[in-house]
């Protein structure tokens, strides 16, 4: 039992199982859309899981990278006539490149200082997307061309459901691969002690940068998918509150847990839909629930529950 709980692929299988089940029980394409959004935001948050959960480096501007990916898919086809799918890739590369440029200087900062630096980065990206109306359509956003996958026009909730689910599965697999590899060990090590990691011959700044770039690529791909699925993107996608939301997904699900991140994303995407029943009290209830979860599952949903279960098992 414990072996199953600890196995690397358990979360992946669980996830695949859930993905296969949802379309069977989802009554309408609205539910499929919500599920697809969960997968997409999970993907974005997974990057943060690597960066924050493994390497312990906070980013409060991660929606900025999501915005870069999203607008690449919007701007490329509309302004440059490029293929949307190509733009998804270009967006990921661009986002990684920006992360590399920005990360080199700022990853030397620690803790809250890194948080404010990344926050600043995110604010600047959002501001550019907001202000360069010619390019981005300004605050009201811009529409996004339909995506064609090898001649197949991706439309409809079910198709997007599978595309986003597939993307998340790949993302989750890569994240789990990293966790179980020397790189993952190095990241978790520098989380606890940078001096000791250096003392083990690990190039701490290079590893941090790699995690940062990878996280940016995850976010960009998620952003691209979001934009393509919605057919429209607004600068809101890159906003500070979105960055906080991504961080919240990672923390609520459980720092460093891949499956937890998906649960965290589900929590924050599905809950507002469920809470509409409370009408004006929606926000208050949401805040309350976040507090209650964090108080009673302080390490996040998955690690806290796992600890509880392991404690009860012989």
């Amino acid at each position, binding site marked *: 039992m414990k072996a199953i709980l600890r196995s690397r692929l358990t979360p992946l299988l669980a996830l695949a199982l859930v993905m296969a089940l949802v379309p069977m029980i989802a009554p309408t394409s609205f539910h499929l859309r919500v599920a697809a959004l969960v997968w997409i935001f999970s993907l974005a948050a997974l990057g943060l899981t690597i960066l924050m959960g493994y390497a312990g480096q906070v980013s409060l501007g991660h929606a900025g990278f999501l915005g870069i990916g999203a607008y690449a898919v919007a701007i490329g086809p509309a302004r440059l006539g490029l293929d949307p799918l190509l733009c998804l890739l270009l967006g990921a590369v661009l986002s990684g490149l920006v992360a590399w440029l920005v990360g080199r200087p700022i990853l030397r900062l*620690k803790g809250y*200082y890194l948080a404010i630096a990344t926050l*600043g980065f995110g604010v600047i990206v959002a501001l550019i997307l907001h202000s360069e109306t010619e390019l981005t359509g300004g605050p009201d956003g811009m529409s996004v061309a339909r995506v064609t996958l090898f001649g197949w026009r991706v439309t409809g909730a079910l198709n997007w459901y599978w595309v986003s689910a597939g993307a998340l599965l790949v993302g989750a697999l890569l994240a789990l691969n990293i966790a179980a590899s020397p790189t993952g060990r190095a990241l978790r090590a520098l989380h606890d002690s940078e001096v000791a990691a250096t003392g083990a011959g690990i190039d701490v700044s290079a590893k941090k940068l790699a995690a940062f770039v990878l996280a940016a690529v995850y976010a960009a791909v998620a952003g691209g998918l979001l934009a393509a699925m919605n057919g429209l993107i607004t600068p809101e996608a890159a906003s500070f509150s979105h960055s906080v939301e991504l961080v*919240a997904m990672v923390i609520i699900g459980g720092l460093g847990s891949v499956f937890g991140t998906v649960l965290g994303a589900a929590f924050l995407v599905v809950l507002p839909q469920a809470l509409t029943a409370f009408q004006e009290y929606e926000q208050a209830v949401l*805040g309350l629930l976040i507090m209650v979860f*964090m108080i009673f599952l302080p*390490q996040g949903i998955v690690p806290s529950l796992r600890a509880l279960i392991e404690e009860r098992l012989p």
Partner: protein
Amino acid sequence: MSEFLQLAFSGLTVGAIYALIALGFTLIYNASDVINFAQGDFVMIGGMGTVFLMAAGLALPVAALIAVIAAVLVGLLLHRLAIEPARGASPVTLIMITIGASIFIKGVSQILFDKQFHSLPAFSGDTPIPVGGATILPQSLWVMGTALALVVALYLFLEHTLVGKAVLATAANRLAAKLVGINVALVLALAFGLSAAMGALAGVVATPITLTRYDIGTLFTLKGFAAAMLGGMGNPVGAVVGGLLIGLIETFAAGYLSSTYKDAVAFLMILVVLLFMPRGLFGSRAVERV
């Protein structure tokens, strides 16, 4: 010259508001290593509370006092019901709790108050005071004065009283703090209560200038956090200098460069400063030994 002066006055006013909020962060951070994301909401409670109490017929000073007390109660409740039960949780978890609290406070305020913008009458009238070709509003002086008074008070408290030291000790090493007999729960409650009071006070003096609404706290949290980090987290003098600097940078950027990108300019400046001084302008220089 008069233009420069005018921009400087504006910058100092806005900066003093940021500084007041940054000061609020300082205490909770110093006691617990936590950034309180509900700090801006304390500011909102101060402003909105006063507005609604005045609308109910109370005089400004009375209304302000009650609003500040209400904010302190909220701060204490936040500590008692959310922070204290999660005792021993990591700072990330505690920060997440404060984020939840911030959403909760906004959610309740939009029902308790409303979703409109509100203002307070300026304490000493609206007549601009001309200085060297530029003008400054009397309310700006109130804001700056309050910031000055609070920074001095906080500095004296932290540096020159044993209870202040106990606050710092609690954040530095909670285990050791318990072992020397510090009542850690009490210290944290004190920090939350006082931070809330400072936040609410900031709200009362700033509202005649910034106006207020149930969700204005997010903005205040963001700017106050930036100010506190620029100055060096945990240092009250740093908080004030950081706040004033950001206010000035924003204003001068808007005045001389681009009003669209003034926030970007401010954050770029913060980045540049942090690259050379990774712990902010007044952050501790001592390094952890290995």
